[in-house]
């Protein structure tokens, strides 16, 4: 393969656009794992659920998948509330979260995947939108709208979350729960309620990310597994619980993956996230922007 400027520029643009999408995929893990210490390895499963919700509504009524996912996000929010309730009552309160809580989320991941296979089969599903096949060109560089639209909405969502967490009372309560639960209790706030809300929020972002995913590429139930390494790699690389860190980590991974696909072939791309995760764990476990 020839090493040309256009190729490199295209790889950079594709990486940045991909990184924006990865930020949406991982911001939920940053909240649940980074801030709340709930190791939700089923996060990718909820992303795929979001993809299928967007797919069904688009298939029946023809609405735009991303708009649908934002309108229907209360649905996944409610699901998140329910799951955290069960998790809290069965594991966190009894101090069983380290082993059995993990197994619980793994079970949920697996059940969701198998249930989707039983309902929809293992066929790949894709949603066609008006902008799906449009590509803007700037000189030799391509900007496929299929990637640009999710990138823009994702950036808006992640920055919105950061503002919400940093500026509002409730957002600060979520940050406080990550630091000192006892202090929160002394201030008269129930940390469980705060965590419940924040966890539900993280699942809601997974639903929206799912709609991005099905706009970007065809989806089948087992595809969620490929994102497990990615979401944790982004979260650890960026620094636990830092939203800006997540954004940065997502761009690093997007670029790394885009360059790997361009120069070594797309079949190697899934190995990138794990390599990054291991490197981050081995050399800088506190992450790029970690405290």
């Amino acid at each position, binding site marked *: 393969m020839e090493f040309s400027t256009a190729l490199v520029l295209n790889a950079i643009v594709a990486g940045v656009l991909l990184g924006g999408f990865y930020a949406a995929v991982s911001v939920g893990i940053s909240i649940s794992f980074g801030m709340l210490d709930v190791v939700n390895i089923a996060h990718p499963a909820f992303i795929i659920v979001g993809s299928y919700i967007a797919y069904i509504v688009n298939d029946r009524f023809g609405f735009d998948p991303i708009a649908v996912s934002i309108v229907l996000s209360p649905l996944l929010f409610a699901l998140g509330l329910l799951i955290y309730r069960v998790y809290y009552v*069965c594991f966190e309160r009894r101090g069983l979260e380290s082993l*059995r809580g*993990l*197994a619980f989320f793994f079970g949920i991941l*697996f059940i969701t995947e198998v249930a989707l296979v039983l309902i929809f089969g293992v066929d790949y599903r894709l949603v066609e939108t008006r902008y799906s096949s449009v590509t803007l060109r700037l000189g030799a560089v391509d900007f496929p709208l299929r990637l640009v639209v999710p990138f823009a909405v994702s950036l808006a969502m992640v920055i919105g979350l950061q503002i919400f967490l940093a500026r509002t009372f409730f957002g600060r309560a979520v940050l406080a729960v990550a630091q000192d639960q006892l202090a929160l209790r002394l201030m008269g706030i129930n940390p469980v309620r705060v965590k419940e809300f924040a966890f539900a929020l993280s699942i809601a972002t997974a639903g929206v990310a799912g709609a991005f995913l099905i706009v970007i590429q065809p989806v089948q139930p087992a595809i969620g*597994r490929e994102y497990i390494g990615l979401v944790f790699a982004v979260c650890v690389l960026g620094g636990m619980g830092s939203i800006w860190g997540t954004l940065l980590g997502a761009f690093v991974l997007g670029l790394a993956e885009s360059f790997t696909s361009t120069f070594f072939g797309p079949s190697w791309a*899934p190995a990138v996230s*794990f390599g990054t995760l291991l490197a981050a764990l081995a050399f800088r476990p506190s992450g790029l922007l970690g405290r």
Partner: protein
Amino acid sequence: MSNRTFAAITLGVAILLMVASRVVANDYFLSAAYTVLQFVILATAWNVLGGYTGYVNFGSAAFFAVGAYTTVFLHKALQLPLPLTVVAGTLVAGLLGLAVGYLTLRMRGVFFAIATLALAVVLYTFVVNWDYVGGARGAYIILPREVPFGLPRYIHLLYFAMVAMAALALIVARAIETSFIGRGLAAIRDDEVAAECAGVPTLRLKLFSATVSGALMGMAGTTLPYYLSYVEPSAAFNLSYAVNSIAMPLIGGMTTWLGPLIGAVLLGTVQQVVQVTVSSAWNLLIVGVLLVVFVTLAPNGIMGWVDAWRRGRAPRP
């Protein structure tokens, strides 16, 4: 019961199981028993790290597949006989366990869990891109025409091998459990900081346990290419191995060697029945649901019930 007595009894049972296969000469039953025994090894291996030490391994399928693909590689490259590939696959998977453990076991336990989860994806990618062992297309293993020991078909030999390996896994697991290593691991599981302070060499014990656990999982996979006679990455790396090897100890009970055995025999048999009568997708759903139900409602598994019942019967001091 001393370890030697236990080993003698286990080997006795193993020989009985082998003899039984010559009486019940039905290939389907042998093949079903092979699968159940394979799960006995996987569950026991998972429990060495998960149950005794408290570190969750989501990558059982990766270790299992490493065993399987070591066999494919050695069969293709050197035409090695079965016993040697079993030993080699066990060693390679053990080394992998040691390496992953060395990189992640020094941090909080959850990072080890995440690393094993991602490990499966990466090794899968690696194998898919490795043409020598078949890549995404998979590889055929041509079974030798002559079956050793005068056995009628190759599945008999594989069944014998599986019985022997399952017996070995149980003996090793129980030996670890009853030794000072097992007590050290239990101390790590209950409170790692306290264990470290009390002089338990935590990192070394954790690495030992990760190595043994990985090696046993790899051992279970070494005969897979002969069993299927065709291996492809998605069969060897199937997520169901990972789910089963977690679900079985959790359902059976994690503190002793008996729990994974009970869980594997129960769940393995149920799956064989469901697979024949309903379908394999439903059988995976059942495993997942059972895992979640048990972990939420009966966190100590079947052995937990037995212990509670025993305590209820014992005269109160």
